[in-house]
């Protein structure tokens, strides 16, 4: 249920100077067209009340330093702000990074130096209650990169100069790539070109917080009650039990400053921790909670529940930034190499993603035609050169001139239902191509990832990827030479793909850049180092007692937009 965030590791290149001006749409979250109109609309917003939002586990952290899993992010998102934030686009699906505290972003020609000017009048919450300056950003990032502070998410800021490529932490006491220009402006130098760098600035590790205050009250105290700039602040954190947020009475954005969050409506947000999703769902049905995840197997029943039908609840599946795919071990004999391309292509052609989505996943997932999820900016429909058509699978396989493997190993981590998905896919494959034999093997999760990373698996290797920030770069990276080793575990390597990827990273113009990423994507899909299966959607139930609910592809909920009817 709980999604670990994944990451990428940076590479290189190219240039151009451009000003990535603030793309001003609605307040950070969604532009007007995408707001879910019917059930959540309920007259004029009004202040007051409590929003009851369950957390699925005790967050590992809620402060910028170490927020990593979705539970921590839910809390962190209401308290902290960064230069950029996530916004659902007018198509209702695509989630994009747009400026938040950044007033202006400038980038040099080869996309290696970014200059950020922050908004004036941004205030830290009480008891710090002072204006945020460029120095605060630099201090925050230096603090987070310090190996002493043991952040688990420094890979996000790895492109910044001064981060040690091996350890992922800063080499010296301060990151050499950060420089304060004036009170509101600072400069970031990267180790390599990365034009989509601003997209990474939606991540908690890039958020601003009062480092002096954190040092003054001590690490432990700040961990329990961190201070940010957002519309809500921590009231109490009863460990393993609940977190309570209260409205920030002195929130800086009283008017409408760009995409930044506006002051909240509800007085407080109660976040009890429900470790068991079935219990959470029962508590939602009882009315204790305003929001709930759905236990496996309950989605359809929840949609048909009388309370959903009469509009008391909304039960919906929100597309995520995940992609579920089967990597092919490209440096292994069974399916690797050019000679096996017909088999890989045939596997793509006969992969019955509809069955997996509709039957195994209760209709919650969306069949994938690419390694890029629909929610990511730069996604183009119909990219897969081997679309599903079981009748064409055998003819494709017949193009293969060698000896068919006696059996194709199919590896997955056991215990999370991957066996069912594997079985559904294998059923489709053997039906379309009776001459193929498969061997399913489940491996305990932890050692599965270790062994996959060590290139121990031959054949098919079950994989999943969730974006950390809204950039197609996240996904194309998976099939670069580096990403093949550390990301997709396909050990795929295509110099042309690497070259296009590097070019894209150095291209400042967004359209042009995404065009290059798409070219790389096309090359990858044609080589078929993987079988994309689906993009997951998060099945959620919300109580329409509360209006203004939105849920972006990263699972963020802007709780300041919510109000009790």
């Amino acid at each position, binding site marked *: 249920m709980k999604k670990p965030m994944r990451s990428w590791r940076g590479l290189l290149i190219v240039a151009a100077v451009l000003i990535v001006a603030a793309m001003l749409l609605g307040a950070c979250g969604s532009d007007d067209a995408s707001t879910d109109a019917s059930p959540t609309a309920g007259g004029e917003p009004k202040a007051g009340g409590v929003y009851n939002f369950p957390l699925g586990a005790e967050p590992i952290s809620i402060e910028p330093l170490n927020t990593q899993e979705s539970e921590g992010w839910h809390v962190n998102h209401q308290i902290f702000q960064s230069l950029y934030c996530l916004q659902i686009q007018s198509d209702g699906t695509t989630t994009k990074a747009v400026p938040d505290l950044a007033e202006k972003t400038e980038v040099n020609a080869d996309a290696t130096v970014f200059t950020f000017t922050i908004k004036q009048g941004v205030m830290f919450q009480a008891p710090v209650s002072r204006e945020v300056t460029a120095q605060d950003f630099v201090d925050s990032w230096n603090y987070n990169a310090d190996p002493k502070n043991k952040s688990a998410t420094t890979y996000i800021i790895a492109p910044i100069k001064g981060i040690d490529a091996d350890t*992922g932490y800063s080499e010296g006491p301060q990151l050499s790539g950060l420089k304060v220009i004036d009170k509101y402006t600072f400069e970031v130098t990267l180790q390599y070109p990365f034009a989509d760098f601003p997209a990474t600035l939606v991540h908690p590790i890039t958020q601003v917080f009062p480092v002096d205050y954190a040092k003054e009250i001590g690490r432990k105290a700040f961990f329990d009650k961190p201070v940010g700039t957002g519309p809500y602040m921590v009231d109490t954190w009863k460990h393993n039990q609940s977190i309570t947020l209260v409205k920030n009475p002195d929130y800086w954005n009283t008017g409408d400053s760009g995409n930044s969050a506006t002051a909240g409506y509800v007085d407080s947000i109660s976040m009890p921790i429900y*470790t*068991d999703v079935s219990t*959470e769902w029962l*508590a939602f049905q*009882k009315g204790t909670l305003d929001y709930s995840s759905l236990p496996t197997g309950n989605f359809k029943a929840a949609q048909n529940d009388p309370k959903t039908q009469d509009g008391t609840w909304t039960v919906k599946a929100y597309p995520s930034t995940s992609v579920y795919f089967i990597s092919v071990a490209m440096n292994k004999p069974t399916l690797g190499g050019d000679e096996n391309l017909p088999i890989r292509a045939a596997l793509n052609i006969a992969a019955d993603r509809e069955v997996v989505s509709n039957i195994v996943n209760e209709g919650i997932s969306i069949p994938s035609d690419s390694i890029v999820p629909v929610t990511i900016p730069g996604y183009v429909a119909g990219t897969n050169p081997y679309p599903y058509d079981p009748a064409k699978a055998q003819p494709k396989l017949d193009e293969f001139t060698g000896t068919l493997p006696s059996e194709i190993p199919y590896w997955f981590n056991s215990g999370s239902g991957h066996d069912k998905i594997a079985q559904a896919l294998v059923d489709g494959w053997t039906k379309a191509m009776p001459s193929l034999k498969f061997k399913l093997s489940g491996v305990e999760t*932890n050692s599965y990832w270790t062994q996959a990373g060590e290139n121990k698996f031959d054949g098919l290797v079950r994989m999943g990827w969730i974006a950390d920030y809204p950039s197609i770069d996240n996904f194309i990276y998976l099939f670069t030479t580096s990403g093949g080793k550390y990301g997709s575990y396909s050990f795929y390597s295509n110099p042309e793909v690497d070259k296009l990827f590097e070019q894209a990273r150095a291209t400042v113009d967004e359209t042009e850049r995404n065009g290059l990423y798409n070219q790389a994507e096309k090359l990858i899909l044609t080589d078929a180092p993987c079988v994309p299966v689906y993009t997951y959607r998060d099945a959620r139930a919300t109580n329409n007692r509360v209006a203004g609910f939105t849920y972006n592809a990263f699972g963020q909920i802007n709780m300041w937009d919510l109000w009790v009817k």
Partner: protein
Amino acid sequence: MIAYIIRRLLQLVIVLFGVTLITFGMLKLVPGDPAVALAGKNATPEKIAFVRHERGLDRPFYVQYIRYVERLVHGDLGESLYTARPVAEMIREAAPVTIQLAVAAVLIELLGIPLGVFSALRQYSFWDTTLTTAALILWGIPVFVLGYFAMYIFGLKLDWLPIGGVGPTVLGIIPSTWESWQTLILPALTLGVIEIAYISYMQRASMLEVSRSDFIRTARAKGLTERKVIWGHGFKNAVIPVMTIAGIDLGALIGGAIITETVFNRPGIGLLIYQGINQRDVAVIAGGVLFATFFFVFANLLVDLGYAWVDPRVRLED
């Protein structure tokens, strides 16, 4: 008696060290490396190696263990790999929640004793058959099924009690508000009712056996009333074996608490261990298991003392 208690406490220390060793050993033997999880899934081998070294995970098993024990002697249980919070503090927060549940469950469990006696006295009657059958059925139901079922009926459908959570307390374990009592009822019943079933079943068997014994006949032959025969002579003898079972059962109670606390969303030791296992957080698991063991051994000591109090053969022969 004092010597006996001191000896038992010394045994406890040895048991606790054994438990930490086993916990450490098992976590070493199971596949998977916490450093991989800590470093993130797409981390390079260098990053993983760095994290492993930084957290001391690359040191040999015995070095890690000795360091742990060294710190343990000074009362330091280490810190969580993920949150860096001191484990001792996590245990301190979680322990009252578990103790509250365990004490409530044991009190409920003890209802099994009169039920068992009641059943035994009416052997093969309607009530006996009903109670015995109910006990066997309850005994066979997994805790989580019973837990969900109880929440569904009493929490959702009847809307009498809250679903999950804990409430404020005094002295750490006594609920201080009506709402707080309400949160305790279902989990304590879920955990306790299964034990009631077990205890009443054992108590019935024990009582039946005792009621057939010669000294009961002697008591009757003296002209004692049936009430005096049952409670004055039979009960004390019949409860002794049940006490032993109840003592051993406290271990099962901690096991049951892991599931019960997860299902009922109670932030106790069980939930701590559950989350620790999920994250392979050695210090958290070891701390939780240490506490559970301490609780188990200590509870057994109390039961043994109670046993000695009831049975002169134990008390006087030591």
